[in-house]
């Protein structure tokens, strides 16, 4: 039965990969949207490390997304460094550092207190990015006027799209390996019963901190790629609580019980938002009803429902 499930999934994965590579044939706008969906997909995946696997809801994940984005942005603005091979590693390092620091504060708490703390800290950094104009550009933000990779200048959005695709798959595989490893299984054990795990001698705090760090790290990668893709970052874009909420919505939509759920959610959300907000005046109403419906009727999201049916059927 497990093999059958695996085969069914393969049916999904292979066409998906192919489509991703030939998307640019559909035009620049579709390419742009898909690139966004992939970047947000990485961020949503990282959020789900905390939500689905550790049982902690972060409503301030834009903090790490923004950390990655601003790390890249600050290097561009103050040091004129535009090379991806420098910007990305620096973003990774800074995201790890921030995640450890913030994690040490946050993982002491669970449930609603954890969520509140993530909101508070992300808002604090949002306010700082806004106020420290000379450093961060304030609400004008930072323009990233070009990107280079090993000396070669990235010529178009479409070209950078492929770098995003590559980053996406690398992140995907890394997270897959991590979450399937003994570490990942222990995380889920803690999530399911903290008491039992503690009796088994597991250090709850260390595991949660590790999960927090991994989560922040990949959100930072997403943020850095986003900044370079868009070319302009600002606090309202990458650090706002509304952005954090979007990551949560994507994860919820696609399903937090499934590994690829957040990715599915990210794609659905990004495309739906683009279509509906142009076609109709009431995108927020549609979005709100969608969230409410999912919470009430389909709490495990699209992939959660699909996987349940595949398991049953």
């Amino acid at each position, binding site marked *: 039965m497990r093999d059958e499930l695996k085969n069914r999934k393969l049916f999904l994965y292979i066409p998906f990969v192919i489509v991703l590579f030939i998307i640019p044939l559909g035009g620049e706008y579709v390419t742009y949207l898909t690139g966004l969906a992939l970047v947000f997909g990485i961020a949503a995946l990282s959020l789900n490390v905390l939500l689905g696997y550790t*049982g902690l*809801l972060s409503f301030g994940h834009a903090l790490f997304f923004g950390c990655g984005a601003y790390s890249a942005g600050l290097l561009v603005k103050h040091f004129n460094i535009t090379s991806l091979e420098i910007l990305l590693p620096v973003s990774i390092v800074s995201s790890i550092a921030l995640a450890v620091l913030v994690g040490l*504060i946050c993982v*002491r*708490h*669970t*449930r*609603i*207190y954890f*969520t*509140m*703390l993530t*909101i*508070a*800290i992300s*808002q*604090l950094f949002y*306010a*700082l990015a*806004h*106020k420290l104009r000379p450093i961060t550009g304030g609400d004008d933000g930072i323009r990233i006027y070009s990107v280079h990779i090993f000396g070669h200048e990235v010529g178009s959005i479409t070209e950078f799209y492929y770098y995003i695709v590559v980053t996406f798959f690398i992140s995907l595989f890394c997270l897959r390996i991590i979450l399937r490893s003994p570490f990942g299984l222990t995380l889920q054990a803690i999530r399911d019963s*903290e008491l039992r795990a503690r009796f088994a001698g597991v250090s709850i705090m260390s595991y949660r901190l590790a999960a927090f760090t991994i989560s922040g790290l990949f959100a930072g990668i997403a943020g850095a790629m986003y900044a370079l893709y868009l070319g302009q970052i600002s606090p309202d874009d990458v650090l706002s*609580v*509304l952005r954090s*909420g979007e990551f*949560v919505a994507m994860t*919820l939509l696609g399903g937090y019980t499934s590994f690829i759920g957040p990715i599915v959610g990210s794609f659905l959300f990004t495309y739906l938002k683009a279509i509906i907000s142009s076609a109709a005046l*009431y*995108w*927020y*109403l549609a*979005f*709100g*009803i*969608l*969230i*409410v419906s*999912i*919470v*009430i009727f389909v*709490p495990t999201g699209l992939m959660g429902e699909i996987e349940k049916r595949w398991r049953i059927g």
Partner: protein
Amino acid sequence: MIPQIINGLIFASILFLVATGLTIIWGILRVVNFAHGSFYLMGVFIAYSITRLSTDPALHLAAPFIAGAITGIVGIAFERGLLKNVYGRGELFELLLTYGMIFVFMDVFRILWGSMPISDPTITFKLGVIPLGGPVVPLYNIYLIVIAAVLAALLWFLLIKTKVGMIIRATSFDTEVTSAFGVNVNWVYALTFFLGCFLAGFAGGLMLPITGAWIGLDVDMLILALVVLVVGGMGSIKGALVASLLIGLVRSFGISMFPAIELAIVYLIMVVVLIVKPSGLFGGVEVEG
């Protein structure tokens, strides 16, 4: 000095009303109502519709009460209609439901009241100013602070001295036991939600003459209310009072003394409190998973 204190008190009064609503909803239902800011905004809009009917000052003064009541009723409808479906699923799902409602309300407001910001300062003009020692202060500002205090006192009386209040508080301790005693827990939930949303809507109505309303105010107010909730201690009305005063006065003096980072200071206070005393100034023991 006096104007700064009065100004801080206005802000604190409104925060207190909204945060108290939020804290009793948490205390009794164990739900963090992310849509609380939307109920606040609802109050402003409803009060606006009322004040548009005539320039009679009595009507304008009554508007927040009426707006609060209507908001409370909408709150009951929401709680009984939608929220109760996710009780027992865990507080995170309840939170997510209220989060989705923010957006539903946003567009509903837009449909009902249009996209443009609204305001109605008529009552502040009519009441004029009174001198307080040296500086003059608008009478409406004083009225606002007083009425908020009166409402706080009424709420305290309701919860501590009346039978209904006792039932509500008992339900927050242990729903199973109270329902074993014959209390209809569903009624208690509905009543609590009514009270919480009434407070939010009432506060909104009070602020109509001062700030007016626009789409987006709901999120701004929500964030501040969450700060107060957390700093004061989730479930504690006393905590909401102290935290509102703290935040209100910090903001008021902060604006005169360190304007550059005034906003960040408020969040910093929240972070520090959560680190040092995670359950807030007056909060109880944090429930462990």
